[in-house]
């Protein structure tokens, strides 16, 4: 499976996932549902923040996309809740819909995510067919049905890292 790295503004789905199998299965599920939107993968929380803000400590949004972030919670370096917190605290980044897609069904994770302003919380089912269905719903809703407010014009650094 090849993930094409592309211009940030064309990216429509940011998949934050550290497990290669889950990453691959997610991409298969997306393709199976004919979701051909451009996908960018970040393998930990730091990579996700670097993608959105340029660096972990930056407060400046550097991407217009994606249309949706699929965020795992248990991640190396910086965990998913922290990524979510930073995004939802930012006046521009908080407009980007974030769907937590995680193994955890712990109530505290769910409650914490919603308190931080997550848009959806989905537990990854073990059954691949169910997972494919869930991904289909996500794609249908966030990429097709959902309307997003316009983003402010953002200066895109052409030499950005990713």
């Amino acid at each position, binding site marked *: 499976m090849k993930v094409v790295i592309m211009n940030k503004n064309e990216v429509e789905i940011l998949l934050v996932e550290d*497990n290669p*199998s*889950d990453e691959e*299965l997610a991409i*298969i599920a997306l393709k*199976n549902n004919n979701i051909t939107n451009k996908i960018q993968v970040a393998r930990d929380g730091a990579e996700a923040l670097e993608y959105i803000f340029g660096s972990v400590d930056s407060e400046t949004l550097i991407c217009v996309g994606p249309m949706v972030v699929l965020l795992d919670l*248990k991640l190396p370096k910086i965990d998913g809740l922290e990524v979510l917190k930073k995004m939802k605290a930012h006046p521009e980044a908080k407009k980007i819909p974030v769907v937590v897609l*995680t*193994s*955890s*069904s*712990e109530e505290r994770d769910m409650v914490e995510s919603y308190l931080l302003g997550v848009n959806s919380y989905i537990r*990854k*089912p*073990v*059954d*691949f*067919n169910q*997972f494919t269905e869930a991904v289909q719903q996500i794609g249908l809703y966030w990429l097709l049905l959902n309307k997003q407010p316009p983003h402010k014009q953002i200066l895109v650094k052409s030499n950005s890292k990713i």
Partner: protein
Amino acid sequence: MKNVTDLKQKERTVEEALEYAKSIVDTLREPLIVLDANLKVVSANRTFYQTFKTKPEETEGQLIYSLGNQQWNIPKLRELLEEILPRNTSFDNFEVEHDFPHIDKRTMILNARRIPGPPAKPRIMLLAIEDITKRRKAEEELKEHRNHLEKLVENRTAKLYKELTERKKSEDKLKEAFQEIKKREKELEMTNEHLDSFAYSVSHDLRAPLRAINGFSQVLLNTYGDKVDEEMRHYLDRISEGAKKMGQLIDDLLSFSRSTRGEIKYEQIDVENIVNDLIKAHLDIELDRDIEFVVNPLGKIEADKEMLKVVFANLLQNAIKFTTNREKAHIEIGSEQKGDHIQFYVKDNGIGFDMKYKDKLFKAFQQLHTDEKFTGSGIGLATVESIVSKHGGNIWAEGEVDKGATFYFTLPSKTHVGD
């Protein structure tokens, strides 16, 4: 003549004085004797005779020591009368204790005085005997009483002190026990924390490989469907089925562990709402089956909503599962007030069970049915049992092979909302 008259007059005066002195002496309540220089009794007063049980004729003219079978032959008295008195004119307050053979033991205070007179006249002396036996006895009794009282107080104080010491000891022990409990509590808290993080990683890390196993066997099937023969398909199905089952097992285990360690959050619950929601969810899945649900009034109760949901979900799932063979499944849910508890029941017309296994029903990982379509994780009823007993209730079941089963559980109708 005048001299005679004077003399007579003087004599009368002396007689009067003597009489006067005699009546004073007789009136005295203390025994009194008058002795001459040879220590012979000149006279004694009434009290003396009464006290020492003797008579004047036996006494007067006798040597004091020989009185009453020599009962007055007291060494101390002799010393006083023969040695001290000749040198002094008097002695006061000499205490003498003596055992009088016919009278008893007496304690006396002796006072003696030489009565001055003209040198020519025989000297006489007055011996006053104060019997202080009774006083002494009273004093001694008082002393004894006081000693007794002192001893009593001492004993009481000692006992009190001992009690106090013992109480302090038990207080110390209690304190120690309390500290031990605190320590245990802390250990338990830590264990719980460990368990918590363990459960967290189980829920997260153990499921990820299962997704890979299930997911990629599905992908294999989907991608190479046309090249996969029946046998290969069968094996791939088994692989993904196994992974799915293990996923369910992990979920059930987590639910069980949550039910045993989680704190109860009491709230007012409409039980019928919970049951009806669960039934609706089940009906959505079991579309091909004919199941008749009868929900009798279930009322409201104070309990943990999420936990109670788990209880009914498990019992309903079981009822649905074990009626699979029935053409028409009948599942009835109801409740009844029993004293200060509400008793709920879930009754089905399924395959039932043998009552001799009734105690194994609620044990974790125990399965009564070997038929594959009835097997579960073996944790469902253990979870239910744990939740019910955590709420202070009981659970049991009645059944007969092939004649259905009824699960009963009770919950206290009044709990701790607002505590």
